[in-house]
């Protein structure tokens, strides 16, 4: 629906990512072909913005906010706790494809700092032990299909 509107590449990529969960290489190629632009241009835009992912992400996604307010209220301790519990650094996904964690800058909920978002649910005033418990609950509540 956007193909004929100029300046819609970002919206097209957002739409594709909503469908696939990330942006596989062949999808980028198809978008480039359809728009009649070089793959390099599509790739350039996809890599510029932090919300586009070129690799498959975990079934559960945890965002730890490290905006200024969350930073002074201890966001680093939250990220460290998750890293040591699940053995992944921010931006990585666990080997079983269950959990991806990432650091984001400011979700605008600063009055509730430190803030984390687990699968689009905003959780304010988090402490490391609460966060680990919420992650565990979330992972257990929706076990992998077929597992």
């Amino acid at each position, binding site marked *: 629906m956007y193909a004929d509107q100029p*300046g819609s590449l970002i919206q097209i990529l*957002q739409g594709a990512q909503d469908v696939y969960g990330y942006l596989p290489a062949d999808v980028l190629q198809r978008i480039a072909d359809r728009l009649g632009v070089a793959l390099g241009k599509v790739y350039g835009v996809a890599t510029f913005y932090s919300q586009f992912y070129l690799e498959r992400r975990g079934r559960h996604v945890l965002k730890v906010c490290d905006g200024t307010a969350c930073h002074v209220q201890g966001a680093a301790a939250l990220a460290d706790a998750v890293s040591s519990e699940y053995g992944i650094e921010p931006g990585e996904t666990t080997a079983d494809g269950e959990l991806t964690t990432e650091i984001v800058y400011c979700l605008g909920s600063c009055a509730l700092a430190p803030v984390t978002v687990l699968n689009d649910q905003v959780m304010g005033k988090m402490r490391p032990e609460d966060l680990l418990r919420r992650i565990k609950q979330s992972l257990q509540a929706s076990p992998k299909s077929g597992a």
Partner: protein
Amino acid sequence: MAIRTGLGNLKSELAPVDDMGRRAIAVCRGTGCSSSASAELVQALRGVLAAHGLGDQVEVRRTGCFGFCAQGPIVVVYPGEVFYTQVTPEDARAIVEQHVIDGQRVDGLLYDDPATEGVTEKWHEISFYGKQQRVLLHNCGIIDPENIDHYLARGGYGALKRVLAQMTPEGVIEEVKASGLRGRGGAGFPTGLKWQFARSTQAWPKYVICNADEGDPGAFMDRSVLEGDPHAVLEGMMIAGYAIGGRAGYVYCRAEYPLAIRRMEIALAQARDAGLLGEDILGSGFGYDIYIKAGAGAFVCGEETALIASIEGGRGNPRPRPPYPAVEGLWHQPSNVNNVKSYAYVPHIIRRGAAWFRGIGTEKSPGTAIFALTGKVNRTGLVEVPMGTTLREIIFDIGGGIPDGKAFKAVQTGGPLGGCLPEAYLDTPVDFDSLREAGSVMGSGGMVVADETTCMVEFAKYFTQFVCDESCGKCPPCRLGSIRMLEALERITAGLGKPEDLDEIRRLAEGMRQSSLCALGQLAADPVMSTLRHFEDEYRAHIEERRCPAGQCQALLTYSIDPETCVGCTLCARNCPVEAISGERREPHVIDQAVCIRCGTCHDVCRFGAVVVG
């Protein structure tokens, strides 16, 4: 909602369609309170009302942000504007049965105001609001932002009607100029003058762009306005479109604000239905529409030329100015770029007059300032005060001071391109010029408070890390300068700093300021330089004494056990991950400094306070 057919009958149609003071329970549905379960609360209230047969007599109104996010979810019961805090779904029954039906206020949910004796009942009597003046936020917490009738009932679109019926575009620009409104994105450029530049450029079509890419960490003013009063932003953009001769408007909103985007989309659909957008608006002959573009996560897109590149669908790289967007902007056409708040002030200025606006605030910075007050302060939230209010009044009178009896250390304004001010500057009035003279900036409105436990070197390192991550990479001073700066700061916080590192930081800062392409690089060193200016002794303690006075830099801490306090319970020794602690049961333990990795576990687990951090 009435469909408007012409200017003649608009006045009668704009008469209040809803008495906002009638029986209603207003529940905050801003992002903050929503994450504190206010959605479930709305459901619970409606359920209890329905059970008592009051479903159609008492409105449960979902409103925008009340600002007092620290005490959320907030509920206000009308009539009487009784202010309840930290309300849970379980409290719904008490609010309906005790307050609405029996007329008895629910004391347990009232705010226990430390500034006054006992609880406070009414919204505007709470000390948090005492020094505030809500101009931009006058609808936030009162109207349902998803209902255009509420906006109309509060005088909404009255300014647009007046502009289209009675004013020339030049007259609108003169009025905005006369009001002295300065751009609320942070730079403080006179808004009316900017509009005049866009109007005077001879090219067509022209565009109006609303910068809603509120990327500053620690800031949520724009988000609250978009979520709480979206029609005010649209009305301001329509008036701007009429004034500059615009064909269309774009709202560029960051994708991290899904609720704001949704509310804007709802507002746009309602405005189109009401005939306030489209061809021949209200029979005036003026044709105009507004579109929303969601960003995709890039701080630099808050810079106006990068933002335009992003609306065009490309990488958000800035380009050199001039030409300014007023001459050559979106699709190479003249474009007017303003911040969310700047547009939202305009309907108020048109409706109440430039002189009224000038009567608020200071001579050179008229109007109000809106801050997201966060960090180490008791009452975090959204604050709107007349320009010229002092930092001390905001942090201590409104914000209630520093939690846990700790000492104030610094306040950071202006986001990651702003600056930190120490206690000696607390009586600085907040306005564009005073803050700049003090070594910080007004910025868009982030205000983060740091206490004695915040290390200013680590704070500076944090901002530099942010710039490294968000630099678009186009120009080397920003791309490479920020990395070199970060390396120097990392050395200092790791206990490896040398005195020459401070010279290196100053040299890099000057280079970035002079030669970066856009404001991101030019201002990137400001947080570092402001901490160096006001807290140089803290930097020197790290470098010369290998000591972090705030006790935050792990590598510079030493842990030891006070033999007088230690009871020899062995808990610390059992929890130490590197077996650095030794000692017999019931005897004082000792930490081997050569083995200790300074993880702090012993300090955390000790029940007797025997582990001393130095």
